[in-house]
């Protein structure tokens, strides 16, 4: 950019802001329900000052230069606030695009006689504003991704509860896919709970696991081995007929692990192992 141009823009900062505000307020898409005009003005002013303050002959050609980071930071902040206020990404994008119109209009007025430089300068302004608009979209998407990641973490936490079904018997229903990260959480929770409750039997229920492939089986075997090292016995329950057939076809050897088809039969086994008996109360007995 010609040295005079950015000086000119700096000089015309106030005019640009006024023009931009005028455009925004006249726009049909103005969302007075979401943002007050004063707040809009302060947002716009902040962005214009940052943008024009950081214009220089170096920064204008290279959007990756460090000079842009304060502008990107401010714009990122604005994009997040707007997203929270309920603006759509399109509206935030239009907010930045309308600045372009104001900038170009000012350039037009100032460089009236010099068409060639007007064209060149307009192109550069275009490029910067386009980059800034992309920044608002990136911020928006990043915000969404953070929400998704947080939810993923929450799901992993929620879905692995260790239940104390009896004194000395723990049950752990696994629901969903058992991947490496999940196994780690499951194993940690289980081993911790074994120590805390002094349990001697743990039941891993896989009724809610949609598919058992060799990796899932390997994870299960590891969990069982770790439980045994802690001195507790581990039973795997909830093996559905189709899963049993698949495991056999895959050639996975689970023969040295105690497996049961349902949680009930696993519990019965556990009672037996602990020399406990569940009996029906004699009907004749009166209370």
């Amino acid at each position: 950019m010609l040295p005079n141009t950015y000086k000119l823009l700096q000089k015309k900062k106030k005019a640009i802001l006024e023009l931009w505000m005028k455009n925004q307020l006249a726009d049909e898409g103005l969302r007075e329900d979401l943002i007050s005009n004063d707040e809009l003005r302060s947002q716009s002013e902040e962005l214009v000052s940052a943008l024009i303050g950081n214009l220089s002959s170096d920064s204008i050609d290279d959007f990756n230069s460090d000079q842009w980071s304060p502008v990107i930071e401010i714009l990122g902040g604005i994009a997040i606030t707007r997203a929270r206020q309920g603006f759509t990404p399109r509206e935030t994008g239009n907010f930045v695009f309308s600045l372009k119109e104001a900038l170009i209009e000012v350039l037009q007025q100032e460089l009236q006689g010099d068409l060639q430089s007007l064209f060149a300068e307009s192109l550069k302004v275009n490029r910067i504003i386009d980059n800034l608009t992309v920044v608002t979209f990136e911020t928006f998407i990043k915000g969404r991704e953070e929400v998704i990641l947080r939810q993923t973490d929450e799901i992993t936490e929620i879905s692995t509860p260790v239940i104390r079904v009896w004194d000395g018997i723990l049950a752990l229903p696994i629901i969903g896919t058992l991947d490496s990260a999940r196994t780690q959480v499951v194993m940690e929770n289980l081993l911790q709970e074994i120590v805390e409750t002094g349990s001697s039997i743990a039941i891993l229920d896989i009724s809610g696991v949609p598919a058992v492939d060799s990796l899932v089986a390997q994870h299960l075997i590891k969990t069982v081995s770790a439980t045994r090292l802690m001195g507790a016995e581990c039973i795997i329950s909830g093996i559905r007929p189709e899963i049993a057939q698949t495991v056999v076809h895959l050639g996975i050897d689970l023969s040295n692990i105690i497996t049961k088809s349902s949680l009930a039969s696993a519990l019965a086994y556990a009672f037996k192992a602990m020399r406990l008996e569940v009996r029906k109360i004699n009907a004749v007995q009166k209370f």
Partner: protein
Amino acid sequence: MVLSLSKDTIQVVREQDVVLLRNRIKEVAVKIKMGLVNQTRLITAASELLRNMLRYGNGGHCVVEIVSSGRNNGVRLTFTDKGPGIPDIALAMKDGYSTGKSLGLGLPGTKRLVNEFDIKSKVGEGTTVTIIKWANG
């Protein structure tokens, strides 16, 4: 003669994509009225191959097709990655052989789970595995 009736490509780059693909395969399998046991076999086979692809091939893509041959309908899955390739396929197909500390049942197990199994690999270029499971096969 195997005819392809519908075709769908899914990119797999992260472990989470496994769930997405599994649901897609399940949908397709239900559509051609595949039994529950065969569904589970197909899905397990697919997740074996997917895990291989993620672990050794840095991800890739999977083509899910409904195919028909005579009166038989089935699902054909084609897994393609641009990973390092397998130097000795015969060895990789052996039970218990693994370069990555796993059980070594992925490829041989998959072959036992499906009706048709084909593997092509070129060192340095990548691996393509094609499997077919017939609805009543």
